[in-house]
């Protein structure tokens, strides 16, 4: 079975899709968004060892030039994450689908589904396919939370198992997307079309932050792309919050509630009927 680096598993998440779900956060992302609220999931540990001496619980050590994390000693203070110069975490476990499913099993029958998030989950399509193959027969709905930079149409088997994708659109103009994330959004737009066409667009999200995100253009662009599907699509407008953010963006302010109201109205005018502002 294929292994994937797992940052953490939240047994009962109430914020990663409908109902009660077990959320699996995979490590590693192909973007580096300025506003990322869990930047420690962006890269894989390079074993520089900077965190080892800082751990107050002695849960970290260097073994064969690799950082080793002792789960039993860890007090979850996250000092290692705060001091990491590499936007990574030493508390990552390589797990295969069966091992992840064993964790999920503990939460049945108290959950209705699983959500895989990240990092960027679509970097691990083989793992996802294997995991959903195990989860589906247990009656669990299977959702992905993705930045949409990997083309889902290339993985038809995965998409057959997946019940929906929560797609983070981030920005509309190529330039704004590039300066916000360091990446390109051509594939995101293609995914938006594709997921809508196959009925697997669970929701579309935009994190709103004035001057850094072209939210208006994104709202209009998404509506144009979805066309007649716009009224039925769930649009989530998330107000930027500096919580957890590292670097330049950590000192930026959240948009005002007045601004969020304006964006909601704009979305309604663009044809959205299911708008959620968070």
């Amino acid at each position, binding site marked *: 079975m294929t292994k994937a680096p797992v940052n953490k598993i939240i047994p*009962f998440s*109430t914020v990663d899709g409908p109902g*009660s779900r077990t959320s699996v956060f995979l490590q590693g992302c192909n973007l580096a968004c300025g506003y990322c609220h869990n930047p420690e999931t962006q890269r894989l540990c390079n074993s520089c060892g900077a965190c080892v001496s800082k751990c107050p619980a002695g849960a970290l050590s260097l073994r064969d030039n690799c950082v080793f994390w002792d789960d039993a000693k860890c007090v979850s203070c996250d000092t290692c994450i705060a001091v990491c110069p590499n936007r990574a975490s030493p508390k990552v476990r390589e797990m295969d689908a069966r091992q992840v499913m064993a964790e999920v099993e*503990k939460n049945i029958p*108290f959950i209705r589904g699983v959500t895989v998030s990240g990092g960027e989950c679509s970097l691990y399509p083989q793992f996802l396919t294997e995991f959903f193959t195990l989860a589906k027969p247990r009656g669990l709905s299977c959702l992905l939370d993705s930045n949409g930079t990997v083309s889902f149409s290339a993985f038809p088997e995965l998409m057959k198992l997946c019940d929906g994708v929560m797609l983070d659109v981030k920005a509309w103009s190529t330039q704004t997307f590039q300066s916000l994330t360091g990446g390109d959004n051509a594939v995101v737009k293609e995914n938006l079309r594709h997921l809508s066409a196959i009925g697997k667009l669970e929701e579309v999200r935009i994190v709103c932050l004035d001057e850094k995100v072209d939210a208006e253009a994104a709202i209009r662009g998404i509506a144009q792309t979805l066309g007649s599907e716009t009224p039925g699509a769930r649009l989530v407008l998330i107000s930027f919050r500096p919580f957890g953010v590292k670097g330049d963006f950590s000192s930026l302010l959240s948009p005002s509630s007045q601004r969020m109201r304006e964006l909601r109205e704009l979305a309604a005018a663009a044809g959205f009927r299911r708008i959620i502002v*968070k």
Partner: protein
Amino acid sequence: MFDREGTYQTLTSRELTHEQKLMGLAKCAENALEVLKIPPRTKHYFESGAINDLFEGGAPYRPRYILPDYDRFVRQGSKFLKLDPPKTLDELLFSLMILYRHVPSITNFPVYLGSVDKLIDPFLDGHTDAEICEKLRLFLTYLDRTITDSFCHANLGPGETRAGRLILKVEREIQNTVPNLTIKYDPAVTPDSFMEEAINCSLACSNPAVCNDPANRAPFGERYGVASCYNILPVCGGAYTLTRVTLTELVKEAESEGHFLNTLLPECLGLIADYMNERIRFIVEQSGFFESNFLVKEGLISKDRFLPMFGVTGMAECVNTLMKEKGKIYGRDKEADDLGQRIMDRIQELVNGYEAAYSPLTGGKFLLHAQVGLDSDLGITSGVRIAIGDEPDSFSDHLRHCARFHRYFPAGVGDIFPIAGNVEQNPAALLDVVKGAFSLGVQYMSFYSADTDLVRITGYLVKRSEMEKYRKHQPVLQNTTQLGSTSYATNHLEKRKVRMG
């Protein structure tokens, strides 16, 4: 023997209201009578604390919990109260308010107000939502300010009704502690949308709690009510008495597990059964209650629908004491939980072997009840709950533990969970958890939001703000504030593990 000092203290207290003094003085008078035969070994266990009759008093003159048949009252009115059957919503609410005033119980207040949504719903035609809400607001406020004891319960569900939805709406807004509300939940009958409203109401004001309707219909069919603190009892009847074994105290005399299971438990539980029968016989044969009370005469209650509740509490400390050498903890270690199950199996076997007087509905049996506690319970964990601080890290392990132990208690058992505040934006998530828990056999759950003013103590609700007043020695309207503030402080309720965060 007459307790002169206690009587004087009650009479001159600066912290009790007039009404609370009056009831305290009545208890002093009752306790001056010595009408029950209590053998020396029973006295010994009373003194050790292993047997506790929850302040029922020395000469019982009414059943402990009374669940009138309010449907019948609405159909026929009351000759004694000179009330015709109500024809309008106003008449209904006034009639209920009048009847509630005359329903006795161990607290001297009604502990059961009926399935209020079903009672009210047929009277709503021709009224707007706004009119109904205004009437409900007055009705519920009257109940909260005059039933000054939180051990009072109204029921909702399992069907969705307009009345049910409006009661939830008003309840959320007025944030009262009385009455407690329980929604009977049957996944086959109750729509998800109604349950989600109920759960959001629960996160806003700690009411309603959720009762597993299919599981709790088992003992008496559909004619059951949830009264006081999670007591599942027959409507048109109730409970004569409730005496509990406090395992926390009984285990202190144990030399070994075998000695506990085979010597202490049989002796102590046998004495409790005898003691409850002694109480039942006094109520039925001597007190005159069933001959004189108008509730009986008008068919709102019936002697053949009463039963005795056999209370069990303090399982956590009992197991932990017997496991002391091995250092295993109830709720965390399999070996400890297995011992808990052996103890419950033994209790069930013994209690089923006793003959209860005047209890035809249960075929002459006592019914087990997981008793939630008293303010004086220091270091005694309610019923079969896991001790605060020992809860498993995993919520699902906790729920599986509940399911394993709830099944022993047909007369009521429940667990309380503080829930992370942000769950309000996704009540379906908590409903998923309830569905899963009920499918495994959990019988009753209550929730409160980790950051609300209304805190569930052992079963009843108290406001943090009122407890603060009482701690500053100011009189407070509800007696349960006094009970709650002691319990909250000594049992470290602030340390309950918050779930779904």
